[in-house]
């Protein structure tokens, strides 16, 4: 197998590749700014320079030439090489800053040049804490500046587009953002303008940087030059908890990081998932974080005698629901599942009403034709359409729904987290004769029309799985506490610095951001105390139960989803589903 010697250590490689990527893959560190594994390699930051050479080959003998000590004679490249663009070669010898003084000096000098015109505004810069330039300077950089002259000043706080703000002074011209718009989103909206010490990235004259993926440039910016208009000055990186999640605003289900502080989701950024979204995600998914914080249903709501909705207690909600259930036959119950709710919620929802004798289950797909593109947006706006279908719910078009309601004349309607009044021809007048129970996360038209509203957890408050448009099942991890969960007790939840070292009495902690809601399955266990069939303790258990019943989900576990960033399901077995 071909071999390469890095800092006197021998490594074997199978695939052709670049030295820098090989080193990163093998856990070695080398400073760099402009390199990005998913973009082309311009090698313009010059930070990853190494000393590299090849052994001298004796063609006559067919062996490597050896010196008197019996070691291979190495012919080094005349200048230091950028590791990011240097191809791996059999027998190559590489020295990094760890073993070579020249490389160490060259990297330090290069960093000093990069820092020459960089403003010293880390204390007010949003990137601080997750800034490669800050980290590498801390690690390798000069302690002070030898530059005694006026720094070059460039425009600051330019609104490049609706979501991205540019601070040109901080830019080190790595061109990652330009390459992103050229190679990934292909809108070609950015370029580097001017030249020399005056250059910075910019859109063409009167163009607006309205790329639907524009915020990815903020992620890959190795300095604070591009910042998110939305997240700017909201929170420090080290104040937040970082929890893996998935984007539930779209059918694609991009892997995400959910950043929370004091139980508010502050921002959502993409998490690397080769099978789904690579390093990217659409802007719309990031901005959907608001739905987790704002307009949430907290505590059950009840509409006594068709008057105004009022908050009520869980006990009262439970009793009212039981009373209503006692009044009706199973044929008078209409159950509508949701492509917006998780597999677990939909499964338990269906199982419960099956036990009451209900036979028909519907869901309303949420597809906006033309909303998708070839990259990471799908026409399907719901995260779990294939999941709810796989569980045996029947799809029903929005214009057919009123007919079902008027013909079946249900006395009791159950709707799982989905604003169906908004998307179908159904109006609240259709539901006037029925007692409507809405299980939802956010207030909307449908929840306002309901007689009883049960608050349930969102994707950032529970562990649950969702099946994306490509049939990949992925799961979320609770990132935000509800009134009934606790970071310190739930080992799956992440603990940030504030959680570790703060107390309940610190002035940055408030209980106001904890929503009074429970997972839908938990409410079902509450409705069935003492029952063995509905005695779940976690969503893990529910998924195991589904796996035992439905072929598609056989063997699917949270552990495997965590390890492999989701599991591709074989949806060919879809036909077997409806037999359950």
């Amino acid at each position, binding site marked *: 197998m071909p071999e390469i010697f890095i800092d006197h250590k021998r490594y074997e490689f199978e695939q052709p590749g670049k030295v820098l990527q090989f080193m990163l893959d093998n856990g070695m560190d080398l400073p760099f700014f402009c390199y990005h594994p998913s973009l082309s390699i311009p090698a313009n930051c010059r930070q990853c320079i190494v000393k590299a050479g090849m052994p001298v080959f004796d063609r006559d003998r067919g062996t490597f030439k050896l010196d008197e000590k019996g070691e291979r004679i190495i012919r080094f490249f005349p200048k230091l090489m950028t590791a990011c663009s240097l191809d791996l070669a059999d027998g190559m010898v590489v020295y990094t800053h760890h073993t070579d003084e020249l490389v160490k000096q060259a990297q330090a000098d290069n960093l000093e040049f990069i820092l020459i015109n960089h403003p010293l505004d880390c204390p007010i810069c949003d990137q601080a804490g997750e800034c490669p330039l800050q980290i590498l300077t801390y690690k390798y950089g000069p302690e002070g500046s030898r530059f005694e002259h006026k720094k070059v000043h460039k425009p600051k706080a330019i609104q490049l587009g609706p979501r991205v703000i540019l601070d040109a002074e901080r830019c080190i011209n790595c061109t990652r953002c330009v390459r992103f718009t*050229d190679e990934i989103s292909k809108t*070609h*909206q*950015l*370029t580097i*303008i*001017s*030249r020399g010490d005056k250059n910075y990235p910019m859109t*063409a*004259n009167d163009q607006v940087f309205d790329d639907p993926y524009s915020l990815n440039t903020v992620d890959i910016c190795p300095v604070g030059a591009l910042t998110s208009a939305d997240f700017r000055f909201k929170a420090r990186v080290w104040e937040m908890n970082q929890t893996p999640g998935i984007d539930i605003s779209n059918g694609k289900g991009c892997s995400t990081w959910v950043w929370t502080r004091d139980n508010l989701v502050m921002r959502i950024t993409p998490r690397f998932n080769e099978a789904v979204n690579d390093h990217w995600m659409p802007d719309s998914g990031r901005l959907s974080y608001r739905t987790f914080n704002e307009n949430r249903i907290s505590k059950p709501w009840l509409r006594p005698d068709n008057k105004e909705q009022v908050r009520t207690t869980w006990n009262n909600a439970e009793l009212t629901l039981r009373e209503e259930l006692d009044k009706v036959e199973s044929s008078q119950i209409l159950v509508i599942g949701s492509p917006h709710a998780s597999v677990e919620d939909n499964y338990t929802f269906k199982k419960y009403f099956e036990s009451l004798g209900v036979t028909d289950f519907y869901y309303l797909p949420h597809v906006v034709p033309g909303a998708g593109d070839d990259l990471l947006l799908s026409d399907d706006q719901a995260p779990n359409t294939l999941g709810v279908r796989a569980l045996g719910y029947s799809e029903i078009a929005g214009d057919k729904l009123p007919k079902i309601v008027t013909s079946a004349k249900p006395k009791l309607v159950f709707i799982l987290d989905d604003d169906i009044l908004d998307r179908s021809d159904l109006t609240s007048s259709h539901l006037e004769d029925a007692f409507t129970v809405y299980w939802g996360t956010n207030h909307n038209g449908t929840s306002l029309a309901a007689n009883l509203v049960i608050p349930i957890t969102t994707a950032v408050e529970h562990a649950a799985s969702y099946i994306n448009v490509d049939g990949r099942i992925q799961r979320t991890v609770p990132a935000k506490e509800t009134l009934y969960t606790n970071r310190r007790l739930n080992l799956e939840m992440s603990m940030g610095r504030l959680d570790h070292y703060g107390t309940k009495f610190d002035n940055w902690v408030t209980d106001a951001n904890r929503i009074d809601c429970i997972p839908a399955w938990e409410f079902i266990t509450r409705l069935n105390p003492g029952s063995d069939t509905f005695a779940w303790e976690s969503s893990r258990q529910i998924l195991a139960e589904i796996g035992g019943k439905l072929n598609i989900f056989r063997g699917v576990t949270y552990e495997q989803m965590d390890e492999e960033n989701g599991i591709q399901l074989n949806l060919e077995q879809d036909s077997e589903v409806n037999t359950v």
Partner: protein
Amino acid sequence: MSGTKTFDEKDLAEIEKLTKKYPEKQAAVLPVLWYAQDKFGHVDPSVQKLVAETMDLPEAHVYGVVTFYTQFYEKPMGKHVLDVCTCLSCQVCGGYDILNYLEDKLGIMAGETTPDGEFSIQSVECLGACGYAPMLQVTNDKYVNYLTYEKIDKLIDDLKSGKQPGFESNKMPQHENGTE
């Protein structure tokens, strides 16, 4: 607005010819921009847009190229554009003195045009004539070398009377010694 700028059929044929010279159309941006600047006298945003659309390239790319070169005028310029080099060698030999003198003389700052539309001054980077520093270039054409205040005065007078500076042949010290 003085109407939308367009390329007529002759222009398009010429651009097609220029583009065909290169394996990639990106490479033809420079000659096409020169062509456009010759036609319109400048390559302001509307011309950049026209070039980008004609060549089917991103406007941002064309904009980036235009801003890289001080030889491309991003706005209408005076009749005579004086590009004073203030890059390293000229700076050391008094490039900024020359620039400041010129600014005072014409009453405008670098990057501006005189109200009568006669002169524009630009402070530019290296024009590759370090041996003749300090120097300036007149409207992307002739170099005026070894600048002094008197030479500037004469240049301005000449230009005002319609006389373009001639080509100066300057010998380097090694040529004078005959050693080469």
